[in-house]
């Protein structure tokens, strides 16, 4: 077991030592600059207001002294200063005031709004931070203010609809499930190669799924580790999009970078805060299904259509075995429950000028809408500590987060059963409360409640940054991070999921266990040089990255227990098998640099570069170089426009550069055999791992962006627009192969070029701000387009029936639906090649694009005195597939609209003839229907994604604030889509829930 091979590589250690040595010079450079003031000290008090209301959280410091104070919730502050000192009063959104004490002991301060101060906000760009006004790259941002408004437990959920160019889709409503995120579209033909790079406080966080198919659950896909990130501890999330911002992340920046900054302490009095909320969640939208009368009518007609006069012994729904007057709304029965949500979050923060701390603890739990008692709970702690030496030369920043998740779910999503069970299927329970098997005529869906899925995830992320100012212009820094993730999952299949009449005992019960451990460390020494000259300001950064990640996994199964009560004890299993056991390693190293040149805060040039090496590529292909150039022109400072009364900010920026992607999994270049868990003659087998190709290299993505940012009327209207074009080439894909090769794909570079281009707009307007009422609106809109630009020999490649040059990647090739033939009652399709039969691929040629045409969100914030209302509408214009329910007439429920089906020659019907499955022509026509133009439908929607109403209770208590908060998620959805909720990646899973919570926020 060598989880931590930090010391194995002498060179890495050697590199790291340098920084230590360099930092040890610190004492040489330290000098005492603290100047003792001989003037008498005063205790100064006062209130900070905006003219009408008190301002809490305002920082008041004494010029040139390490003294700091922060105003409380009634705007009051106290600070010690000398009679001739000056107070510096600063607060985001207001102009910084410098006020002379002039011997006073009461200094009331009135701050003036500075709308342009938004431009002064420092934006985190990863290795460096940059003033909003001076950034040359494309960075979208949300802060804890937006995150706190939402009753969600996943950080991706908190970003939905709020950022231009970022499309996020929830894949299941089951708690602990995942989200699909695409930043500026799909760059890779590989569907699993489009996730962004996540970085928490400088430490990369692997988003590669944990979990195993054997412990597979009700999620579409495996468990996502992103649930470990606790939204309550997040201060801000920045998304880096263009080349200027992402090239410094080189090979991992192609799909964008998500930077998560956790909460830090602030100097001043120790503050306490408690947030607690509780609420409920329900399914947003059900299908409109047939009732018993409609269903049985369909069934009988189907038998008649197939010329079957006597019902078979197994056709329980129609042959009289089941009560034909029973009617159950299975969606209500199986998905109609109410999930309970609880969230508690507490924090303490404070500190002195030199040392600040913040401690945050949280607990979150959510039950499900399924029947049965299942919960997902999450608890975590986050600690952050900042320190600087007296002379401010040495700085340390430390943060650690630890999260525990416990998820207990049925390992089965009842959505399929809820939609397909005949409405006259028997009742779930017998009169005496046991599961009803109705003499073995059905598989009671609730049997699946016994197949529990349990997941325990413990996740630690720790990070320390040491920095030291070596000289006036030069500083050194090292960022050392460590992450550890442990996940164990289990899924049980007890004998109780079977009808007891079959006498299946616990001897055939089984359990599947999956244990994953993932450790990584990263070390990033950096040097920063800054110099301002009359020829402009230079800011240079040089750094290196060493990263090592080791994962180990063990998948086991146990079968045969003396009792189902012992099922969680592997020791009690008669047969224990190891289904998988592996340890893998991923190593990564890079050198990066940035040179920023700023002339008169007007012309800015930003050069970034990175040389990356990754262990995921074979010899000769391991290294690659990435770089970008970005520039900004703050034209509002030019003479010809200066002092314009309506335009107060104007910037044009552009960038071009390259990024790459190495998201292909480890060891794909090796020619190996893999140990298989399967035994034969007592020997464990060895299977060829893959088709061998060591020659593949980096995927490259060239990004181009031009953007303009304009502020009007003191930023009361702030507008940005960006045009981008990302071209990714040298596509690294598992090229589909016919099975005659032995495998279904091979890892290789493909000459295909994928282009993602689009326009992004954001508009923020302060509609009204007068006295105690203010109203602001933010809009973001993205119109993306993905295009397959080039694909050498597409027609002779295995992708020919999947893509079209000039079309988006997310297209479907479909049969052209013509309608129902009034004579035969069958669906008909266009016979494109006129050969008399509908055949694949010749007739499956109609292209439909399922990628969104545009998407975005409109957020409004209204504040009146102590009441604030914040709501966000999210919208998407898109096509998507209907929900397939199989040929109508089988023993499976159908959508109510199908009841108007063809029944006799001459009928002009929308839906075809019913069949019990014996009419092969009808079965075939139905299968083609699901691959035809009729099946793709408008799935656009507008959704009230989030609403938050809060009331600041007047307490007249010094330093105390109490807010009552009502929050809602997904409360309203407007859509034409008829097959359930329009937000999904793959259908048949529980849709997102609509959630209402109420809570309090107490700060003191």
């Amino acid at each position, binding site marked *: 077991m060598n989880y931590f091979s930090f010391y194995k590589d002498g060179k890495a250690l050697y*590199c790291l030592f*340098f920084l230590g040595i360099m930092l040890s010079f610190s004492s040489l450079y330290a000098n005492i600059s603290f100047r003792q003031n001989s003037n008498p000290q005063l205790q100064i008090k006062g209130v900070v207001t905006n003219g009408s209301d008190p301002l809490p959280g305002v920082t008041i410091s004494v010029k040139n002294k390490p003294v700091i104070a922060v105003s409380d919730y009634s705007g009051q502050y106290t600070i010690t200063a000398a009679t001739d000192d000056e107070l510096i009063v600063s607060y985001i959104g207001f102009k910084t005031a410098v006020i002379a004490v002039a011997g006073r002991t009461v200094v009331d301060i009135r701050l003036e709004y500075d709308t342009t101060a938004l431009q002064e906000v420092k934006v985190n760009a990863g290795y460096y931070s940059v003033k909003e006004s001076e950034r040359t790259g494309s960075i979208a941002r949300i802060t804890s203010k937006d995150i706190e408004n939402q009753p969600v437990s996943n950080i991706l959920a908190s970003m939905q609809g709020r950022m231009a160019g970022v499309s996020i889709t929830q894949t299941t409503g089951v708690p602990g499930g995942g989200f699909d995120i695409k930043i500026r579209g799909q760059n890779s033909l590989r569907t699993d190669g489009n996730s962004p790079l996540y970085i928490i406080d400088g430490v990369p966080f692997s988003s590669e799924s944990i979990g195993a198919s054997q412990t597979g659950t009700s999620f579409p896909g495996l468990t996502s580790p992103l649930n470990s990130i606790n939204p309550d501890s997040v201060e801000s999330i920045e998304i880096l999009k263009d080349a200027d911002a992402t090239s410094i992340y080189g090979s991992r920046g192609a799909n964008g970078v998500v930077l998560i900054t956790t909460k830090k302490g602030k100097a001043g009095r120790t503050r306490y805060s408690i947030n607690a909320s509780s609420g409920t969640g329900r399914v947003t939208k059900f299908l409109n299904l047939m009732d018993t009368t409609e269903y049985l009518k369909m069934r009988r007609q189907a038998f008649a259509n197939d010329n079957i006069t006597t019902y078979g*012994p*197994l056709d329980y729904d129609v042959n009289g075995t089941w009560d034909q007057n029973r009617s159950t709304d299975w969606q209500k029965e199986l998905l109609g429950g109410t999930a309970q949500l609880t969230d508690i979050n507490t924090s303490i923060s404070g500190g002195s000028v030199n040392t600040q701390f913040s401690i945050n603890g949280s607990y979150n739990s959510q039950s499900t809408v399924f029947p049965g008692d299942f919960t997902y709970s999450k608890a975590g702690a986050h600690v952050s500590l900042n320190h600087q030496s007296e002379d401010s030369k040495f700085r340390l920043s430390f943060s650690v987060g630890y999260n525990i998740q416990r998820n207990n779910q049925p390992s089965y999503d009842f959505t399929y059963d809820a939609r397909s069970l005949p409405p006259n299927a028997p009742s779930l329970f017998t009169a005496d409360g046991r599961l009803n098997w109705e003499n073995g*005529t059905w*598989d009671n869906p609730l049997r699946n409640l016994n197949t529990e899925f349990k997941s325990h995830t413990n996740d630690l992320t720790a990070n320390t940054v040491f920095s030291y100012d070596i*000289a006036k212009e*030069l500083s050194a820094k090292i960022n050392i991070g460590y992450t550890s993730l442990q996940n164990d999952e289990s899924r049980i299949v007890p004998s109780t999921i079977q*009808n007891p009449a*079959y*006498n299946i005992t616990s*001897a055939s019960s089984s359990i599947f266990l999956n244990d994953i451990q993932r450790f990584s460390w990263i070390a990033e020494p950096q*040097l920063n040089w800054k110099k301002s000259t009359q020829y402009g300001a230079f800011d240079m950064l*040089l750094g*290196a990255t*060493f990263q090592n990640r080791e994962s180990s996994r063990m998948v086991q199964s146990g079968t045969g227990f003396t009792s189902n009560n012992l099922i969680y004890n592997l020791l009690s299993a008669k*047969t224990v098998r190891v289904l998988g*056991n592996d*340890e893998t*390693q991923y*190593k*990564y*190293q890079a050198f990066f640099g940035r040179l920023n040149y700023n002339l008169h805060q007007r012309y800015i040039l930003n050069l970034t570069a990175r040389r990356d*090496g990754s262990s995921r590529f074979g010899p000769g292909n*391991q*290294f690659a170089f990435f770089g970008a150039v970005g520039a900004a022109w703050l034209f509002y400072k030019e003479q010809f426009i200066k002092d314009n009364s309506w335009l107060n900010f104007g910037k044009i920026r552009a960038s071009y550069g390259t990024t790459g992607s190495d998201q292909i999994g*480890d*060891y794909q270049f*090796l*020619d190996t*055999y*893999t*140990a298989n868990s399967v035994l*034969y*003659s007592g*020997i*464990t*087998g*060895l*299977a*060829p*791992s893959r*088709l061998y190709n060591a020659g593949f290299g980096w995927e490259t993505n060239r990004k181009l962006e031009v953007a303009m940012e304009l502020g009007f009327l003191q930023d009361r209207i702030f507008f940005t627009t960006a045009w981008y074009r990302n071209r990714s080439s040298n596509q690294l894909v598992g090229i*589909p*192969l*016919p*099975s*005659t*090769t*032995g*495998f*279904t794909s091979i890892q290789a570079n493909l000459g295909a070029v994928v282009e993602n281009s689009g326009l992004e707009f954001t508009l923020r307007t302060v509609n009204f701000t007068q006295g105690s009422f203010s109203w602001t609106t933010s809009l973001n809109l993205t119109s993306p387009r993905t295009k397959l630009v080039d694909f050498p020999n597409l027609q002779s490649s*295995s992708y*020919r*029936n999947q893509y079209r040059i000039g079309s988006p990647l997310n297209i479907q090739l479909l049969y052209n639906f013509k309608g129902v033939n009034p004579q035969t009652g069958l669906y008909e399709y266009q016979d494109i090649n006129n050969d008399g039969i509908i055949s694949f*691929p010749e007739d499956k040629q109609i292209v439909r694009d399922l990628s969104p045409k545009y998407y975005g969100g409109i957020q409004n914030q209204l504040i009146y005195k102590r009441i604030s209302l914040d709501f966000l509408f999210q919208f998407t214009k898109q096509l998507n597939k209907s929900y397939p329910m199989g040929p109508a007439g089988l023993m*499976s429920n159908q959508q109510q609209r199908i009841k108007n089906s063809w029944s006799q020659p001459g009928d002009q019907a929308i839906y075809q003839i019913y069949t019990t499955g014996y009419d*092969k022509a009808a*079965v075939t026509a139905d*299968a083609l229907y699901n691959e035809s133009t009729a099946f793709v439908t408008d799935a656009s929607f507008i959704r009230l994604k989030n609403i938050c109403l809060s009331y600041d209770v007047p307490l007249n208590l010094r330093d105390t604030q109490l807010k009552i908060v009502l929050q809602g998620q997904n409360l309203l959805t407007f859509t034409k889509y008829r097959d359930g909720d329009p937000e999904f990646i793959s259908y048949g899973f529980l849709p997102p829930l609509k959630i209402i919570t109420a809570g309090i926020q107490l700060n003191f």
Partner: protein
Amino acid sequence: MKALSKLKLYIPLTVLFNSLFSCDSFIEVGLPKSQLTTEAVFEDYNTAEAALLNIYSGIRDRGILTGTGQGISNLLGNYADELVSSESPTNSSLNFYKNSLMTTNTAVSGFWTVSYNQIYAANAILEGTHKSDKMTIEQKKQLQGECYFIRALLHFYLSELFGSIPYITDTDFRKNSKATRMPLPLIYENIEADLQKALTMIPSQYLEQERVRPNAAAVQALLARIYLYNKAYGEASNAASAVLNQNQLYILETLNTAFLISSKETIWQLHAGTAGRNTSEASYFTFTAIPPPQVYLSGTLLSSFDAADLRRTAWIKAVTKNSATFYHAFKYKENNATAVSKEYSIVFRLAEQFLIRAESRAYQGDLIGAKEDLNKVRNRAGLTNTGAVSQQEIIEAVVHERRHELFTEQGHRFFDLKRTGKLDNVLGPIKMAWNTTNILLPIPQSELATNPNLLPQNPGY
């Protein structure tokens, strides 16, 4: 002082960057713990053998010959007239039962992809052992012989199911991704050639006690079947004799012992893997309460048995509740794990060889010899000697006997109807959606999409 501080600055900086740029070896990683290089696999007989055994466990668990519901024992039983699938839309047997297969049927594409993956594995061993200089000639011959046998066996089933198919003999994916469908006679030539090669390499004794590795007799058994299917009756008869003549090693057992691990009737069976595990056939076919959850034996099969036929009671079990009775195949009896494994899934057994020789002899005019072989099987089932007299009668009696001897075993019934041209006559009247073109399964749509050389699709799909 100033100069000194500058020096202090530059020395560490220089060293830092020198060291950083010499750190390229940092990204070297070792092999993952679960993997072994291909070269290393064939440096050692034990690991090479593990690669071979993995193909057998694959054949047992997945693809055409698996005893699970996804194999042909079940699916072709439904497709022909042996089994009835219970009417649940999620039952994967249902589309076979209803003879309404789509080109996207996952079981059908499973037959194709799994078999070619196993063929790849066999070819990889042939190539790996060929290159290896660490194994003895004997070791290589034995491994290679089994690989030729596997390659022939899988291509045989693929061609029976899909008609003309590509015959893959190496691991070159560039070539094999453009593979074309080979005409049937040529496929049979290739199969025969591979089996003849195997015959010269595989020992006649079993490597292991439990007959879980194919020996020369298994190769002969497959040859006999292939000759019979191709109406090469002389060769079929000789190949079958090569097995039947080893009458110390192979003996017809009683009905109740024929499917046990120790059965001397077995020519080749598939090891169950884990100790205590039994066959997938038993766990899939057996039901203990009714209505049957998956499949049950059809009325036509049940009623075709002679009243005196002991197989009707020894190999078939009735489950009754109230007044309803359903029947399941009961050749394999252990549907759960037992302390020690009792049954393995049998691929070749002696009874079939008797029936192959009986049919071949009949066609060759050796009616006495034919009846003698046929009666061996009949007598074991408690039946009297056949009453068939003429050549035609005897041939029909043999085919009739095969139906009752080999039911629910690897699709024998379907293949018999197919090779004797009786599919339409027999299945047409009793299977509602039966169509002449159902004689072949559809080539999976995904395969046609990735390799257009496989076009056109089989008729009817």
